[in-house]
């Protein structure tokens, strides 16, 4: 053996906590007790798995809603005609016949308004090819595809000239094509509405069902003037679709339209109402978000339970290993070393549990999303939150047992049976 004096140091100074050594000790200790380590982690695994799974599913559902609302156009306002009161009988929304095509033209001159389409709606029996079909015939302006964020797949949309000349032209949705022109290109063909021949100039891209379950492709678009003067005979429109510059100016545009129409109508009460899609989107997403918070709350409770489980096992472990703590202290472990050792054990348990929980949660949500044909969004932010939270739980639940261990007196600990 070497001479003792050569190895020994004369003075004792500050030294950093030996983190790497402590991690190795902690991992060894956890490996010695695999079954117990796994069971201890189970609480965190379930907690984190529940958080990630539920958040993935609800954010998937929210995204589905948001996509649909976005497909309606995010910066869209709709002006509905309002209540009509006659002899004390109030008719309810849409009963007033107050909105006109002139209102639409006036709105289109407002700043921040990029597109306007007056809308007239009617269900009609349409005929073509010896087949017939009952569908929604909409009178619209040329801006309609732009406002609805809806492309024309083949052919083109009618323009201002057709609107001015009350042209008998139509743009049809995919469902109408499927029903009236199976295996045929409808562009250039004729469709009969109330016995009037309308030439099909375009076909819209299929859009599918909307949030409320109705088929958006079951539609025939004609110039609103043609609709108002040829198909039906009326001088008012059902509503006016307006697209604002962007969704930041929506509130401003909404106020401007309200002021403009109040002046134009000179009515004693407001006989119209202006709604925007943003409100709709907020209502729909708010409910799914509330659901998400509820699930996250449940998951947080199970995480807390998992943390208590870790604390419990760590306390048992400290008592069980009192002698080990004594030996370690005898061979030179300081209180801080013991504290760190047990703290790292607890953090390791919870972080490994958290990692397994993340994988389990993502797997679970992918399976559910696949079975239920839902979109699945893996929430990166929540994964980060889960990792940080499980580490935090480890520190919190491990601190008291670790502190207890570090405060042991080496002499008592060595004598402990």
């Amino acid at each position, binding site marked *: *053996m070497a001479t003792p004096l050569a190895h*020994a140091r004369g003075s004792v100074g500050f030294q950093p906590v030996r983190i790497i050594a402590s991690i190795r000790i902690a991992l060894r200790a956890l490996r*010695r007790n695999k079954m117990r380590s796994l069971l201890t982690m189970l609480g965190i695994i379930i907690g984190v798995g529940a958080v990630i799974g539920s958040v993935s599913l609800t954010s998937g559902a929210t995204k589905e809603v948001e996509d649909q609302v976005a497909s309606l156009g995010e910066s869209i306002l709709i002006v509905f005609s309002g209540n009509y009161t006659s002899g004390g009988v109030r008719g309810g929304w849409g009963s007033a016949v107050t909105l006109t095509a002139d209102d639409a033209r006036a709105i289109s001159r407002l700043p921040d308004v990029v597109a306007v389409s007056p809308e007239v709606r009617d269900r009609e029996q349409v005929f073509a090819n010896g087949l017939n079909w009952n569908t929604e015939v909409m009178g619209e302006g040329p801006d309609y595809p732009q406002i609805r964020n809806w492309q024309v797949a083949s052919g083109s949309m009618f323009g201002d000239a057709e609107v001015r000349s009350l042209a008998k032209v139509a743009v049809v949705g995919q469902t109408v094509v499927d029903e009236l022109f199976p295996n045929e290109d409808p562009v250039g063909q004729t469709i009969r509405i109330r016995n009037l021949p309308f030439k099909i100039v375009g076909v819209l891209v299929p859009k599918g069902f909307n949030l409320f379950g109705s088929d958006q492709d079951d539609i025939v678009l004609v110039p609103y003037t043609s609709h108002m003067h040829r198909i039906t005979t009326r001088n008012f429109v059902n509503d006016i679709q307006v697209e604002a510059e962007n969704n930041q100016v929506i509130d401003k545009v909404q106020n401007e339209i309200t002021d403009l129409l109040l002046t134009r109508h000179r009515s004693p009460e407001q006989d119209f109402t202006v709604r925007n899609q943003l409100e709709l989107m907020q209502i729909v997403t708010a409910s799914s978000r509330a659901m998400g918070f509820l699930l996250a709350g449940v998951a947080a409770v199970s995480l807390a339970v998992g943390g208590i489980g870790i604390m419990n096992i760590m306390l048992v472990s400290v008592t069980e290993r009192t002698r080990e703590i004594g030996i370690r202290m*005898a061979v030179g472990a300081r209180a801080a070393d013991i504290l760190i050792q047990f703290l790292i054990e607890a953090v390791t348990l919870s972080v490994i549990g958290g990692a397994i929980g993340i994988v389990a949660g993502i797997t679970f949500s992918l399976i559910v999303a696949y079975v239920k044909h839902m979109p699945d969004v893996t929430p990166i932010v929540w994964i980060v939150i889960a990792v940080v939270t499980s580490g935090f739980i480890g520190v919190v639940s491990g601190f008291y047992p670790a502190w207890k261990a570090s405060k042991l007196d080496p002499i008592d600990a060595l004598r402990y049976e």
Partner: protein
Amino acid sequence: MSSNAVIQLVDLHKVYHTGEVDVHAVRGVSLEIQPGQFIAIMGSSGSGKSTLMNMIGCLDRPTSGEYQLDGVNVSALDRDALAEIRNAKIGFVFQGFNLLSRTSALENVEMPMLYNHRRVHSEEQRERARQSLEIVGLAERADHHPNQLSGGQQQRVAIARALVNRPSLLLADEPTGNLDTQTSIEIMGVFQKLSDQGITIVMVTHELDIARYTKRMIVLRDGKIVTNEPVRDRLNAEQELVKLRQAQAAVKLA
């Protein structure tokens, strides 16, 4: 303090304040232990030998008096500093072996190096642990866990662990208390060999037979040293083992 003694105790006192009565466990012990010394501390229970042992081992601090270990005045150090002194200068051997279960002999021996002031590289740790096991003759059992080893072998692992940081002082507390006669003699053989190599050993025991393998014997009574003398008729572990085997053979023949 010009001497180069490993241990120098000057009028060491220890008083425990337990409830109403103060227990005066050690009452003025002065002692010098030179390098290479092999000392047995004896005494009945309550004589203060455990308390003295704990203070020498830097596990406990004296109430008054001075303790110089290897030139460092350790009587005034705090908990953390004492932990470092234990790590660097003292190797402990306990009655109950105190090995970590489900941990290989090699890892048990490596353990003190985890707490070294200067980080020891893990390969160097393994190498030094292996050397230490070689000294106690257990190199081929490095991968065995304590429950796969006999009591004597476990105690050898504990001695290897005590030696791994090349301490100034090996402190053994009833190292043969849990062992049979033959194994006890074998362990004393290991100590005698280490002592011959110049390692200072302080051993607490209550067995006179075991104390006779040491070089010097100290007897405590009521917290004071009553005897401090060299061991006469010192036993040699190797010779004793030979005698024991002959005796056993004789019994079998008869």
